[in-house]
Protein backbone atom coordinates (compact mmCIF):
# COMPACT_ATOMS: atom_id res chain seq x y z
CA UNK A 1 0.00 0.00 0.00
CA UNK A 2 2.82 2.40 0.83
CA UNK A 3 3.78 2.61 -2.83
CA UNK A 4 0.39 3.90 -3.89
CA UNK A 5 0.20 6.18 -0.90
CA UNK A 6 3.67 7.63 -1.22
CA UNK A 7 2.43 10.91 -2.65
CA UNK A 8 0.05 11.48 0.28
CA UNK A 9 0.65 13.95 3.02
CA UNK A 10 0.60 11.90 6.20
CA UNK A 11 -0.83 12.45 9.64
CA UNK A 12 -0.31 9.79 12.30
CA UNK A 13 -2.97 9.90 15.00
CA UNK A 14 -0.58 8.31 17.46
CA UNK A 15 1.44 11.52 17.19
CA UNK A 16 -1.19 14.14 16.38
CA UNK A 17 -4.42 14.92 18.18
CA UNK A 18 -7.81 15.00 16.50
CA UNK A 19 -7.78 18.78 16.92
CA UNK A 20 -4.47 19.04 15.11
CA UNK A 21 -5.70 16.74 12.34
CA UNK A 22 -8.93 18.62 11.78
CA UNK A 23 -7.27 22.03 12.01
CA UNK A 24 -4.95 21.03 9.16
CA UNK A 25 -7.70 19.47 7.04
CA UNK A 26 -10.03 22.43 7.65
CA UNK A 27 -7.45 25.10 6.83
CA UNK A 28 -8.32 27.39 3.95
CA UNK A 29 -5.35 26.52 1.75
CA UNK A 30 -5.46 22.74 2.17
CA UNK A 31 -5.03 20.74 -1.05
CA UNK A 32 -4.03 17.33 -2.30
CA UNK A 33 -4.22 13.86 -0.81
CA UNK A 34 -3.92 12.92 2.83
CA UNK A 35 -3.26 9.69 4.67
CA UNK A 36 -4.45 9.41 8.27
CA UNK A 37 -2.77 6.49 9.99
CA UNK A 38 -3.58 4.76 13.30
CA UNK A 39 -7.13 6.10 13.62
CA UNK A 40 -7.79 3.30 16.16
CA UNK A 41 -11.46 4.11 16.53
CA UNK A 42 -11.00 7.77 17.46
CA UNK A 43 -14.03 10.05 17.09
CA UNK A 44 -14.69 13.05 14.85
CA UNK A 45 -11.96 12.24 12.33
CA UNK A 46 -12.01 14.63 9.35
CA UNK A 47 -15.20 16.48 10.34
CA UNK A 48 -16.34 19.83 9.02
CA UNK A 49 -14.13 19.74 5.92
CA UNK A 50 -14.80 22.19 3.13
CA UNK A 51 -12.09 21.61 0.54
CA UNK A 52 -12.13 19.09 -2.35
CA UNK A 53 -9.28 17.01 -0.94
CA UNK A 54 -8.77 13.24 -0.83
CA UNK A 55 -8.31 11.55 2.52
CA UNK A 56 -7.60 7.94 3.33
CA UNK A 57 -8.25 6.86 6.89
CA UNK A 58 -6.11 3.79 7.26
CA UNK A 59 -8.08 1.76 9.78
CA UNK A 60 -11.11 1.96 12.06
CA UNK A 61 -12.92 5.22 12.62
CA UNK A 62 -15.02 6.04 15.70
CA UNK A 63 -18.15 8.21 15.86
CA UNK A 64 -18.99 10.83 13.24
CA UNK A 65 -16.12 10.33 10.79
CA UNK A 66 -16.57 12.75 7.91
CA UNK A 67 -19.37 14.55 9.80
CA UNK A 68 -20.90 17.52 7.90
CA UNK A 69 -18.49 16.93 5.03
CA UNK A 70 -18.44 19.42 2.15
CA UNK A 71 -16.53 18.60 -1.05
CA UNK A 72 -13.91 16.29 0.47
CA UNK A 73 -13.58 12.64 -0.54
CA UNK A 74 -12.90 10.23 2.31
CA UNK A 75 -12.04 6.57 2.20
CA UNK A 76 -12.16 4.66 5.48
CA UNK A 77 -10.20 1.46 5.06
CA UNK A 78 -11.77 -0.21 8.08
CA UNK A 79 -15.12 -0.01 9.89
CA UNK A 80 -16.81 3.23 10.80
CA UNK A 81 -18.53 4.03 14.11
CA UNK A 82 -21.97 5.59 14.69
CA UNK A 83 -23.07 8.55 12.60
CA UNK A 84 -20.47 8.28 9.84
CA UNK A 85 -20.92 11.13 7.32
CA UNK A 86 -23.73 12.55 9.46
CA UNK A 87 -25.25 15.64 7.87
CA UNK A 88 -22.86 15.42 4.90
CA UNK A 89 -23.55 18.17 2.36
CA UNK A 90 -21.40 17.13 -0.59
CA UNK A 91 -18.29 15.15 -1.50
CA UNK A 92 -18.07 11.46 -0.71
CA UNK A 93 -17.35 9.00 2.05
CA UNK A 94 -16.49 5.40 1.23
CA UNK A 95 -16.24 2.80 3.98
CA UNK A 96 -14.43 -0.37 3.03
CA UNK A 97 -15.64 -2.24 6.11
CA UNK A 98 -18.94 -2.04 8.00
CA UNK A 99 -20.70 1.07 9.25
CA UNK A 100 -22.30 1.28 12.69
CA UNK A 101 -25.71 2.78 13.39
CA UNK A 102 -27.08 6.01 11.90
CA UNK A 103 -24.73 6.05 8.92
CA UNK A 104 -25.43 9.11 6.80
CA UNK A 105 -27.92 10.47 9.36
CA UNK A 106 -29.63 13.69 8.15
CA UNK A 107 -27.14 14.03 5.29
CA UNK A 108 -28.14 16.53 2.62
CA UNK A 109 -25.90 15.59 -0.27
CA UNK A 110 -22.88 13.77 -1.56
CA UNK A 111 -22.36 10.04 -1.85
CA UNK A 112 -21.92 7.59 1.01
CA UNK A 113 -20.75 4.12 0.00
CA UNK A 114 -20.61 1.31 2.53
CA UNK A 115 -18.81 -1.72 1.15
CA UNK A 116 -19.81 -3.93 4.06
CA UNK A 117 -22.99 -3.85 6.14
CA UNK A 118 -24.63 -0.88 7.82
CA UNK A 119 -26.17 -1.06 11.30
CA UNK A 120 -29.52 0.22 12.54
CA UNK A 121 -31.05 3.47 11.28
CA UNK A 122 -28.88 3.80 8.18
CA UNK A 123 -29.96 6.97 6.39
CA UNK A 124 -32.19 8.17 9.27
CA UNK A 125 -33.78 11.54 8.41
CA UNK A 126 -31.68 11.71 5.22
CA UNK A 127 -32.26 14.95 3.37
CA UNK A 128 -30.92 14.41 -0.11
CA UNK A 129 -27.82 12.24 0.25
CA UNK A 130 -27.25 9.14 -1.87
CA UNK A 131 -26.27 6.08 0.15
CA UNK A 132 -25.17 2.83 -1.46
CA UNK A 133 -24.64 -0.21 0.77
CA UNK A 134 -23.03 -3.27 -0.79
CA UNK A 135 -24.13 -5.41 2.15
CA UNK A 136 -27.24 -5.21 4.36
CA UNK A 137 -28.78 -2.54 6.56
CA UNK A 138 -30.18 -2.84 10.09
CA UNK A 139 -33.61 -2.02 11.49
CA UNK A 140 -35.33 1.33 11.08
CA UNK A 141 -33.15 2.28 8.13
CA UNK A 142 -34.33 5.38 6.26
CA UNK A 143 -36.55 6.24 9.25
CA UNK A 144 -38.23 9.58 8.44
CA UNK A 145 -36.02 9.84 5.36
CA UNK A 146 -36.96 13.05 3.57
CA UNK A 147 -35.21 12.93 0.24
CA UNK A 148 -32.31 11.25 -1.53
CA UNK A 149 -31.76 7.59 -2.34
CA UNK A 150 -30.80 4.58 -0.26
CA UNK A 151 -29.54 1.58 -2.22
CA UNK A 152 -29.17 -1.72 -0.38
CA UNK A 153 -27.57 -4.56 -2.32
CA UNK A 154 -28.13 -7.04 0.50
CA UNK A 155 -31.09 -7.28 2.88
CA UNK A 156 -32.94 -4.72 4.98
CA UNK A 157 -33.92 -5.19 8.62
CA UNK A 158 -37.22 -4.46 10.35
CA UNK A 159 -39.30 -1.33 9.79
CA UNK A 160 -37.58 -0.16 6.64
CA UNK A 161 -38.54 3.36 5.66
CA UNK A 162 -40.79 3.99 8.66
CA UNK A 163 -42.57 7.38 8.47
CA UNK A 164 -40.91 7.97 5.13
CA UNK A 165 -41.21 11.26 3.29
CA UNK A 166 -39.94 11.57 -0.28
CA UNK A 167 -36.74 9.49 -0.22
CA UNK A 168 -36.40 6.45 -2.51
CA UNK A 169 -35.22 3.10 -1.21
CA UNK A 170 -33.89 0.31 -3.44
CA UNK A 171 -33.32 -3.16 -2.02
CA UNK A 172 -31.96 -6.17 -3.91
CA UNK A 173 -32.39 -8.78 -1.17
CA UNK A 174 -35.14 -9.34 1.35
CA UNK A 175 -36.89 -6.77 3.50
CA UNK A 176 -37.65 -8.12 6.96
CA UNK A 177 -40.54 -5.72 7.37
CA UNK A 178 -41.67 -2.36 6.09
CA UNK A 179 -42.23 0.50 8.52
CA UNK A 180 -45.41 2.54 8.80
CA UNK A 181 -46.31 4.34 5.57
CA UNK A 182 -43.57 2.66 3.50
CA UNK A 183 -44.70 0.61 0.51
CA UNK A 184 -43.26 -1.09 -2.51
CA UNK A 185 -43.53 1.00 -5.66
CA UNK A 186 -43.36 0.11 -9.29
CA UNK A 187 -39.86 0.78 -10.54
CA UNK A 188 -40.22 3.58 -13.07
CA UNK A 189 -37.79 4.29 -15.86
CA UNK A 190 -36.60 7.29 -13.87
CA UNK A 191 -36.07 5.13 -10.77
CA UNK A 192 -34.11 2.63 -12.81
CA UNK A 193 -31.95 5.34 -14.26
CA UNK A 194 -31.20 6.79 -10.84
CA UNK A 195 -30.37 3.34 -9.49
CA UNK A 196 -28.09 2.48 -12.38
CA UNK A 197 -26.28 5.76 -11.98
CA UNK A 198 -25.77 5.21 -8.25
CA UNK A 199 -24.51 1.64 -8.67
CA UNK A 200 -22.07 2.86 -11.24
CA UNK A 201 -20.96 5.83 -9.17
CA UNK A 202 -20.43 3.51 -6.20
CA UNK A 203 -18.38 1.14 -8.35
CA UNK A 204 -20.77 -1.76 -7.88
CA UNK A 205 -20.75 -3.80 -11.08
CA UNK A 206 -21.82 -7.23 -9.88
CA UNK A 207 -25.48 -6.37 -9.33
CA UNK A 208 -27.92 -5.36 -12.00
CA UNK A 209 -30.45 -2.60 -11.34
CA UNK A 210 -33.23 -4.85 -12.66
CA UNK A 211 -32.87 -7.09 -9.59
CA UNK A 212 -33.77 -4.39 -7.11
CA UNK A 213 -37.15 -3.42 -5.82
CA UNK A 214 -38.18 0.13 -5.12
CA UNK A 215 -39.86 1.45 -1.96
CA UNK A 216 -41.30 4.82 -1.18
CA UNK A 217 -43.82 6.69 0.90
CA UNK A 218 -47.47 5.68 0.76
CA UNK A 219 -48.12 9.30 1.84
CA UNK A 220 -50.92 8.19 4.14
CA UNK A 221 -49.39 10.09 7.05
CA UNK A 222 -48.94 13.33 5.16
CA UNK A 223 -52.13 14.80 6.51
CA UNK A 224 -53.88 13.37 9.49
CA UNK A 225 -56.77 11.06 8.84
CA UNK A 226 -58.46 9.20 11.65
CA UNK A 227 -58.38 5.89 9.76
CA UNK A 228 -54.58 5.97 9.79
CA UNK A 229 -54.35 6.76 13.49
CA UNK A 230 -52.80 3.39 14.28
CA UNK A 231 -49.73 4.32 12.23
CA UNK A 232 -48.96 7.35 14.41
Amino acid at each position, binding site marked *: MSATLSNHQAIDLRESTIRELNAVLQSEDVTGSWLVSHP*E*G*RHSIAVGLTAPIDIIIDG*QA*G*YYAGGMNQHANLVIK*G*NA*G*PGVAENMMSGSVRIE*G*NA*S*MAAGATAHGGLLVIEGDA*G*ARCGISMKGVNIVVRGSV*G*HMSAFMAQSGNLVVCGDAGDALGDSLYEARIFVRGTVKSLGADCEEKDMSAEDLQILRGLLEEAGITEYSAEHFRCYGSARRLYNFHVDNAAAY
Partner: protein
Amino acid sequence: MCGIVGLFLKNPALQPQLGALTAQMLKTMTERGPDSAGFAIYGGGAHGRTKMTLRGVTEALRPDFEKSVLSLSDSATFSYRDDHLVVSCPDDAVSAIRELVAGYGSDVRIVSSGDSIELYKGVGLPEDVAARFQLAEMSGTHAIGHTRMATESAVTTAGAHPFSTGPDQCLVHNGSLSNHNTLRRQLVRDGLSFETENDSEVAAGYLSWRLSRGERLDEALTASLSDLDGFYTFVVGTRDGFAVLRDPVACKPAVMAETDDYVAFASEYRAFAGLPGIESATVFEPEPQRVYHWEHAA
Protein backbone atom coordinates in the same frame (compact mmCIF):
# COMPACT_ATOMS: atom_id res chain seq x y z
CA MET B 1 -24.58 5.72 31.02
CA CYS B 2 -21.32 4.13 30.56
CA GLY B 3 -18.57 2.26 28.85
CA ILE B 4 -18.43 -1.51 28.80
CA VAL B 5 -15.52 -3.80 28.02
CA GLY B 6 -15.23 -7.56 28.06
CA LEU B 7 -12.56 -10.05 27.08
CA PHE B 8 -13.06 -13.80 26.81
CA LEU B 9 -9.91 -15.75 26.07
CA LYS B 10 -10.01 -18.79 23.82
CA ASN B 11 -6.26 -19.23 23.86
CA PRO B 12 -5.05 -20.14 27.38
CA ALA B 13 -1.60 -18.75 26.56
CA LEU B 14 -3.08 -15.24 26.86
CA GLN B 15 -4.39 -15.83 30.40
CA PRO B 16 -1.46 -14.16 32.17
CA GLN B 17 -2.17 -11.02 30.11
CA LEU B 18 -5.91 -10.86 30.82
CA GLY B 19 -5.64 -8.21 33.52
CA ALA B 20 -3.27 -6.02 31.54
CA LEU B 21 -5.43 -6.16 28.43
CA THR B 22 -8.60 -5.46 30.42
CA ALA B 23 -6.98 -2.52 32.22
CA GLN B 24 -6.00 -1.01 28.90
CA MET B 25 -9.53 -1.46 27.51
CA LEU B 26 -11.06 0.03 30.64
CA LYS B 27 -8.89 3.13 30.39
CA THR B 28 -10.05 3.86 26.83
CA MET B 29 -13.63 4.06 28.09
CA THR B 30 -12.88 6.86 30.59
CA GLU B 31 -14.86 9.56 28.75
CA ARG B 32 -17.94 7.35 28.71
CA GLY B 33 -17.71 6.79 32.45
CA PRO B 34 -15.47 9.04 34.53
CA ASP B 35 -17.34 8.61 37.84
CA SER B 36 -16.46 5.08 38.85
CA ALA B 37 -15.21 1.82 37.45
CA GLY B 38 -15.20 -1.85 38.24
CA PHE B 39 -14.40 -5.23 36.84
CA ALA B 40 -15.04 -8.90 37.39
CA ILE B 41 -12.28 -11.29 36.59
CA TYR B 42 -12.75 -15.04 36.34
CA GLY B 43 -10.16 -17.75 36.86
CA GLY B 44 -7.98 -19.50 39.35
CA GLY B 45 -10.70 -21.36 41.17
CA ALA B 46 -10.08 -24.69 42.82
CA HIS B 47 -12.52 -27.58 42.95
CA GLY B 48 -14.58 -27.57 46.13
CA ARG B 49 -13.59 -24.06 47.10
CA THR B 50 -15.42 -20.77 46.87
CA LYS B 51 -13.98 -17.31 46.38
CA MET B 52 -15.82 -14.49 48.12
CA THR B 53 -14.90 -10.90 47.33
CA LEU B 54 -15.60 -8.56 50.25
CA ARG B 55 -15.50 -4.81 50.55
CA GLY B 56 -15.02 -2.87 53.76
CA VAL B 57 -12.75 -5.11 55.80
CA THR B 58 -10.58 -2.24 57.01
CA GLU B 59 -7.07 -2.66 58.32
CA ALA B 60 -8.40 -2.26 61.84
CA LEU B 61 -10.89 -5.08 61.28
CA ARG B 62 -8.51 -7.49 59.60
CA PRO B 63 -6.93 -9.37 62.56
CA ASP B 64 -10.27 -10.01 64.22
CA PHE B 65 -11.99 -10.83 60.93
CA GLU B 66 -9.32 -13.31 59.80
CA LYS B 67 -9.30 -14.97 63.22
CA SER B 68 -13.07 -15.38 63.11
CA VAL B 69 -13.02 -16.80 59.59
CA LEU B 70 -10.21 -19.22 60.44
CA SER B 71 -12.18 -20.44 63.43
CA LEU B 72 -14.93 -21.41 60.99
CA SER B 73 -12.59 -22.84 58.36
CA ASP B 74 -8.90 -23.31 59.07
CA SER B 75 -8.02 -23.63 55.38
CA ALA B 76 -9.37 -20.18 54.47
CA THR B 77 -6.95 -17.85 52.74
CA PHE B 78 -7.00 -14.06 52.46
CA SER B 79 -5.87 -11.88 49.61
CA TYR B 80 -6.17 -8.11 49.92
CA ARG B 81 -6.29 -5.57 47.11
CA ASP B 82 -6.85 -2.02 48.31
CA ASP B 83 -10.17 -2.06 50.19
CA HIS B 84 -11.30 -5.38 48.74
CA LEU B 85 -10.55 -8.79 50.15
CA VAL B 86 -10.89 -12.18 48.51
CA VAL B 87 -11.52 -15.00 50.96
CA SER B 88 -11.05 -18.48 49.57
CA CYS B 89 -12.71 -21.20 51.59
CA PRO B 90 -14.18 -24.67 51.22
CA ASP B 91 -17.69 -24.57 49.74
CA ASP B 92 -19.21 -25.92 52.96
CA ALA B 93 -17.89 -22.95 54.96
CA VAL B 94 -19.63 -20.34 52.81
CA SER B 95 -22.87 -20.02 54.72
CA ALA B 96 -21.12 -19.73 58.07
CA ILE B 97 -18.84 -17.02 56.70
CA ARG B 98 -21.83 -15.20 55.21
CA GLU B 99 -23.40 -15.19 58.65
CA LEU B 100 -20.20 -13.90 60.15
CA VAL B 101 -20.03 -11.08 57.60
CA ALA B 102 -23.63 -10.12 58.30
CA GLY B 103 -22.59 -9.56 61.92
CA TYR B 104 -20.24 -6.76 60.86
CA GLY B 105 -23.16 -4.63 59.70
CA SER B 106 -23.56 -2.83 56.42
CA ASP B 107 -19.97 -1.57 56.24
CA VAL B 108 -18.68 -4.99 55.26
CA ARG B 109 -20.24 -6.35 52.09
CA ILE B 110 -19.89 -9.48 50.05
CA VAL B 111 -19.66 -8.14 46.51
CA SER B 112 -19.37 -11.48 44.74
CA SER B 113 -19.02 -15.13 45.42
CA GLY B 114 -18.43 -18.21 43.29
CA ASP B 115 -15.98 -20.74 41.97
CA SER B 116 -13.89 -18.34 39.96
CA ILE B 117 -15.25 -14.77 40.07
CA GLU B 118 -13.44 -11.91 41.78
CA LEU B 119 -15.06 -8.49 41.63
CA TYR B 120 -13.54 -5.09 42.31
CA LYS B 121 -15.03 -1.65 41.99
CA GLY B 122 -14.51 1.86 43.21
CA VAL B 123 -15.15 5.55 42.70
CA GLY B 124 -12.71 7.45 40.51
CA LEU B 125 -11.23 7.44 37.06
CA PRO B 126 -11.06 3.96 35.49
CA GLU B 127 -7.29 4.11 35.21
CA ASP B 128 -6.94 4.89 38.92
CA VAL B 129 -9.42 2.21 39.94
CA ALA B 130 -7.58 -0.40 37.84
CA ALA B 131 -4.26 0.68 39.37
CA ARG B 132 -5.63 0.55 42.92
CA PHE B 133 -6.55 -3.10 42.49
CA GLN B 134 -3.45 -3.96 40.39
CA LEU B 135 -5.70 -5.23 37.61
CA ALA B 136 -2.78 -5.26 35.16
CA GLU B 137 -1.13 -8.04 37.16
CA MET B 138 -4.16 -10.35 37.26
CA SER B 139 -4.60 -13.40 35.13
CA GLY B 140 -7.69 -15.38 34.29
CA THR B 141 -9.99 -16.81 31.64
CA HIS B 142 -12.33 -13.88 31.06
CA ALA B 143 -13.06 -10.44 32.42
CA ILE B 144 -15.80 -7.84 32.23
CA GLY B 145 -15.26 -4.19 33.04
CA HIS B 146 -17.34 -1.07 33.28
CA THR B 147 -16.88 2.68 33.49
CA ARG B 148 -19.81 4.64 34.84
CA MET B 149 -21.36 8.03 34.22
CA ALA B 150 -24.04 8.01 36.90
CA THR B 151 -27.48 8.92 35.60
CA GLU B 152 -30.08 8.88 38.36
CA SER B 153 -28.36 7.17 41.28
CA ALA B 154 -25.47 8.26 43.44
CA VAL B 155 -21.78 8.11 42.57
CA THR B 156 -20.73 5.53 45.16
CA THR B 157 -18.73 2.34 45.22
CA ALA B 158 -21.97 0.42 45.71
CA GLY B 159 -23.42 2.09 42.62
CA ALA B 160 -20.44 1.12 40.48
CA HIS B 161 -20.74 -1.85 38.16
CA PRO B 162 -20.46 -4.82 37.81
CA PHE B 163 -23.34 -6.01 39.95
CA SER B 164 -23.20 -9.57 41.17
CA THR B 165 -26.41 -11.02 42.52
CA GLY B 166 -25.78 -14.74 42.10
CA PRO B 167 -22.93 -17.24 42.23
CA ASP B 168 -20.27 -16.45 39.63
CA GLN B 169 -22.71 -14.06 37.94
CA CYS B 170 -22.18 -10.46 37.17
CA LEU B 171 -23.79 -7.86 34.96
CA VAL B 172 -22.70 -4.56 33.47
CA HIS B 173 -25.06 -2.20 31.72
CA ASN B 174 -24.99 0.77 29.40
CA GLY B 175 -28.31 2.51 29.02
CA SER B 176 -31.23 3.54 31.16
CA LEU B 177 -34.12 1.32 32.24
CA SER B 178 -37.57 2.86 32.54
CA ASN B 179 -39.44 0.31 34.66
CA HIS B 180 -36.84 -0.76 37.19
CA ASN B 181 -38.65 0.64 40.22
CA THR B 182 -41.70 -1.53 39.68
CA LEU B 183 -39.54 -4.53 38.92
CA ARG B 184 -37.43 -3.94 42.03
CA ARG B 185 -40.58 -3.94 44.19
CA GLN B 186 -41.70 -7.23 42.62
CA LEU B 187 -38.31 -8.83 43.15
CA VAL B 188 -38.14 -7.62 46.73
CA ARG B 189 -41.51 -9.28 47.33
CA ASP B 190 -39.94 -12.45 45.96
CA GLY B 191 -37.19 -12.25 48.55
CA LEU B 192 -34.38 -10.46 46.76
CA SER B 193 -32.60 -7.57 48.41
CA PHE B 194 -30.90 -4.64 46.72
CA GLU B 195 -28.05 -2.47 47.87
CA THR B 196 -28.65 0.56 45.64
CA GLU B 197 -31.29 2.53 43.73
CA ASN B 198 -29.42 1.64 40.54
CA ASP B 199 -31.42 0.36 37.57
CA SER B 200 -28.59 -1.97 36.58
CA GLU B 201 -28.67 -3.76 39.92
CA VAL B 202 -32.32 -4.54 39.24
CA ALA B 203 -31.39 -6.05 35.88
CA ALA B 204 -28.73 -8.18 37.57
CA GLY B 205 -31.16 -9.25 40.27
CA TYR B 206 -33.81 -10.05 37.71
CA LEU B 207 -31.47 -12.36 35.79
CA SER B 208 -30.28 -14.05 39.00
CA TRP B 209 -33.89 -14.56 40.03
CA ARG B 210 -34.64 -16.26 36.71
CA LEU B 211 -31.48 -18.38 36.89
CA SER B 212 -32.32 -19.41 40.45
CA ARG B 213 -35.56 -20.85 39.08
CA GLY B 214 -33.55 -23.16 36.85
CA GLU B 215 -33.62 -21.20 33.63
CA ARG B 216 -30.61 -21.15 31.37
CA LEU B 217 -28.86 -17.81 30.88
CA ASP B 218 -30.09 -17.44 27.31
CA GLU B 219 -33.67 -18.11 28.46
CA ALA B 220 -33.36 -15.53 31.23
CA LEU B 221 -31.94 -12.95 28.85
CA THR B 222 -34.66 -13.62 26.30
CA ALA B 223 -37.28 -13.13 29.00
CA SER B 224 -35.71 -9.81 29.95
CA LEU B 225 -36.63 -8.50 26.50
CA SER B 226 -40.26 -8.45 27.53
CA ASP B 227 -39.83 -7.63 31.24
CA LEU B 228 -37.22 -4.87 31.12
CA ASP B 229 -38.25 -1.60 29.50
CA GLY B 230 -35.92 1.10 28.31
CA PHE B 231 -32.53 1.21 26.64
CA TYR B 232 -29.82 -1.26 27.47
CA THR B 233 -26.77 -3.10 26.37
CA PHE B 234 -25.99 -5.84 28.90
CA VAL B 235 -22.90 -7.95 29.24
CA VAL B 236 -23.37 -10.81 31.66
CA GLY B 237 -20.51 -12.86 33.07
CA THR B 238 -20.81 -16.45 34.20
CA ARG B 239 -18.29 -18.98 35.48
CA ASP B 240 -17.59 -20.32 32.02
CA GLY B 241 -18.30 -17.44 29.72
CA PHE B 242 -20.27 -14.37 28.97
CA ALA B 243 -23.36 -13.20 27.13
CA VAL B 244 -24.41 -10.00 25.39
CA LEU B 245 -27.87 -8.57 24.84
CA ARG B 246 -29.10 -5.30 23.33
CA ASP B 247 -32.62 -3.93 23.65
CA PRO B 248 -34.87 -3.82 20.55
CA VAL B 249 -34.22 -0.14 19.80
CA ALA B 250 -30.46 -0.60 20.26
CA CYS B 251 -29.41 3.03 20.61
CA LYS B 252 -26.53 2.33 22.92
CA PRO B 253 -23.38 1.34 21.08
CA ALA B 254 -21.85 -2.12 21.13
CA VAL B 255 -19.07 -3.68 19.11
CA MET B 256 -17.40 -7.08 19.20
CA ALA B 257 -14.14 -8.46 17.85
CA GLU B 258 -13.31 -12.12 17.44
CA THR B 259 -10.03 -13.85 16.62
CA ASP B 260 -8.82 -17.41 17.15
CA ASP B 261 -7.46 -16.21 20.50
CA TYR B 262 -10.34 -14.25 22.02
CA VAL B 263 -13.74 -12.64 21.81
CA ALA B 264 -13.79 -9.01 22.89
CA PHE B 265 -16.72 -6.74 23.61
CA ALA B 266 -16.80 -2.95 24.06
CA SER B 267 -19.00 0.10 23.79
CA GLU B 268 -16.60 1.53 21.24
CA TYR B 269 -13.96 0.16 18.93
CA ARG B 270 -11.33 2.35 20.61
CA ALA B 271 -11.16 -0.19 23.42
CA PHE B 272 -9.85 -2.85 21.05
CA ALA B 273 -6.98 -0.82 19.64
CA GLY B 274 -4.39 -2.44 21.90
CA LEU B 275 -5.53 -6.05 21.59
CA PRO B 276 -3.11 -8.47 19.94
CA GLY B 277 -3.98 -9.31 16.34
CA ILE B 278 -6.90 -6.84 16.26
CA GLU B 279 -5.99 -5.80 12.70
CA SER B 280 -7.15 -9.20 11.43
CA ALA B 281 -10.06 -9.72 13.86
CA THR B 282 -13.64 -10.12 12.71
CA VAL B 283 -15.29 -6.96 13.97
CA PHE B 284 -19.09 -6.78 14.14
CA GLU B 285 -21.95 -5.27 16.08
CA PRO B 286 -24.33 -7.46 18.04
CA GLU B 287 -27.84 -7.31 16.64
CA PRO B 288 -30.67 -6.06 18.80
CA GLN B 289 -32.81 -8.59 20.71
CA ARG B 290 -30.36 -11.40 20.02
CA VAL B 291 -28.59 -13.24 22.82
CA TYR B 292 -24.89 -13.78 22.11
CA HIS B 293 -23.19 -16.33 24.32
CA TRP B 294 -19.63 -17.59 24.53
CA GLU B 295 -18.60 -20.39 26.84
CA HIS B 296 -15.53 -22.38 27.69
CA ALA B 297 -16.03 -26.12 27.49
CA ALA B 298 -16.77 -27.18 31.05
